[in-house]
């Protein structure tokens, strides 16, 4: 019996002179929900692609359920169900045929195929649409069909690359419920990347943060918050042109501020209430009209910000270049 669903050892991937992944090691336990976070261009996608067998690493080892991906890629790929970032369903095929083709590619025997298709359609809540062409589906329906497609061959490991990006709240909640259910009921191991940090916070048993191709933090969400020793967070939201002045006020009361796109944040440290009172006084003395002043427990967002120096979500849509303009950039 193997203890780890996915085991990565000292993974390195170079593209020419660029080192995308630089010695990442991970051991993902069976039955856990594991979140892989990192700013865009941090090496997250490359790591995922290597686990999927799409990319060959420059060096390092990958085992999926104890099977060596580099030696037996076809066998290892059969262990994983995958939901990619882009919704991949064939618009010119019916929901049922979409599932049938992938069921066959995942080597489901013919006599079990129809049963598995029915199971997947039920799982995706698409039983009434089995003969409808996927091209007529809404974004959320396509997403659910794709997720069901990844689950139909009952893999013990599921890999989701930003599964809820671009979904509305209702569909996101449906996907979350689905993931929790298959994790609890069938003990399926889930490895997911996400840019919604609250999603990782809520769903994941453990989180790894990757930056510049290296693993910079690993632990449960609670551990991560404690590990970096962060106290209550003070946040002042205001119009962007006021943020520099607010930042000055933070420094006056002895805080180390970080300026985000529409707010200034800082860990409050000790005597947090007293510091917030002083900030309020200074704000009104300088006639600065802030939208909101708040104190909250550190979120994974704050952890992420402190560790990588960038906010996960703000980097969306930019690649590499965005890293050089992390703070105070106009949008």
């Amino acid at each position, binding site marked *: 019996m193997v203890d780890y669903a996915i085991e990565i050892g000292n993974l390195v991937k170079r593209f020419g002179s660029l080192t995308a992944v630089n010695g990442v090691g991970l051991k993902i336990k069976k039955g856990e929900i594991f979140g892989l976070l990192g700013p865009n261009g941090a090496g997250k996608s490359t790591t995922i692609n290597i686990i999927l*067998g799409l990319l060959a690493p420059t060096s390092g080892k990958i085992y999926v359920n104890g099977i060596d991906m580099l030696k037996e890629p076809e*066998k290892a790929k059969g262990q994983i169900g995958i939901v990619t970032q882009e919704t*991949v369903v064939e618009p010119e095929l019916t929901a049922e045929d979409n599932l049938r083709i992938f069921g066959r590619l995942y080597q489901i025997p013919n006599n079990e195929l129809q049963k598995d298709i029915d199971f997947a359609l039920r799982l995706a809540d698409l039983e009434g649409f089995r003969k409808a062409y996927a091209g007529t589906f809404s974004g959320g329906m396509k997403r659910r069909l794709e997720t069901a497609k990844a689950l139909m061959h009952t893999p013990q490991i599921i890999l989701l690359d930003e599964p809820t990006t671009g979904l509305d709240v209702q569909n996101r909640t449906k996907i979350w419920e689905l993931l929790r259910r298959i994790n609890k009921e069938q003990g399926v191991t889930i490895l997911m990347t996400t840019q919604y940090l609250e999603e990782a916070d809520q769903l994941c048993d453990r989180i790894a943060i990757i930056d510049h191709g290296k693993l910079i933090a690993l632990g449960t969400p609670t551990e991560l918050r404690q590990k970096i020793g962060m106290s209550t967070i003070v946040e002042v939201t205001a119009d962007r042109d006021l943020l520099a002045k607010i930042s000055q006020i933070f420094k006056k009361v002895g805080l180390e501020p970080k300026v985000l796109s529409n707010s200034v944040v800082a860990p409050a440290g000790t005597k947090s209430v007293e510091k917030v009172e002083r900030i309020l006084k200074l704000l009104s003395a300088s006639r600065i009209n802030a939208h909101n002043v708040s104190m909250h427990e550190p979120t994974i967002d704050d952890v992420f910000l402190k560790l990588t120096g960038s906010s996960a979500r703000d980097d969306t849509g930019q690649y590499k270049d965005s890293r050089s303009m992390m703070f105070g950039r106009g949008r």
Partner: protein
Amino acid sequence: MGLVNDTYTLFLREMLIFKKNLGVNLVRSMIFPILFILLLGAFGSSPKNVPVALVNYDNGLTGLQFINLLQAGSSIKVISSTTQQTAMGLLSQGSVSAVIVIPSGFSSAQLPKPDIYVYLDNSQPQSASVVNLVVGQVAAKLGAQLASPSVASDPASASVPVVTNYAYGAASNYESFVVGGIVIMVAAFGSVFSAGFTVLSDRELGNLKAFLTTPINKFAILLSKIGYGTLQSLLSAYIGLAIGLALGATVAAGVIGVIELMWIIFLVGLSFGSLAIALAMRAKQLQTYALIGQSIVMPAAFLGGAFVPVSLLPPLLQAVTVANPLTYAVNAVRDIMIKGALPVPDLVLDSAVLLIFSGLMLALAFMFFKNTSEQLS
């Protein structure tokens, strides 16, 4: 076993998508053959009703005999003129393509008969040559009847008896010639535009990447696409043939010939399907791909003798045709459609050339496809 099974699964997928778009696919397969047969068929067939002004100064029996023979075929339309001057006027206006003058006393004269004069307008060489040919034939025929009137424009025809027989293709026509070429051209187009396009659209939609994450041999993807392209080739070619037959082409080898064609079309589909995959892996963009595909297939079909016999091409291009695999395909199809049989040595040569070309293209496709997952991620 796995490769065969996975290839079948992916081929099945192509067929399901094909079925969904059946109408569009069929119409697309019909456009090219219809267009080309109508355009080229009309252009290439022997001209009819070429207008000729005829001046008869003779008014005798032999002269009328000559005129009747001229009108017997429908190639020439005779317009009577009273004087040579008016006739020449019509020629200079371009309303007629030639003027024929039968001299006075033609009928009553003893052999050798006085010369019949033909004035040609060679600014339209096709029409002029038709007139020349017909007058020559008529003179020969009349000569056989009377012994020999001579025609000034074509003295050879009257003096030397020539017996012409069609060794092959007696029942053939230009439609059969052109359809033979079109069948091969649409076969090549069929696989280039189906196999290549599905690769590009699957790449665009992320399907290619999704297939690669499943536990299959990745070459199953390649083989299924080539299979689909080959099938589309067969479909396009047979639709082209059917349209050709409806518009007047014939297959001299009959039903067996129609079946024999399948092997040649299959090889064209296989080789051009493989070429299509190799191109699609490189071209990446639909527009680029369409441009490259077109600029390969069209010249290849033209230089393969699809529309113009290879023997009529300039020497430099003739040399190129030897290295063009479509030359051999077109040859084989013409043998079947016009000559009525594909001789074994020809079959061996044509098949060998097409098989070698298919092998090379298949190798190229495999080579370009090998690193595809690295390119996609």
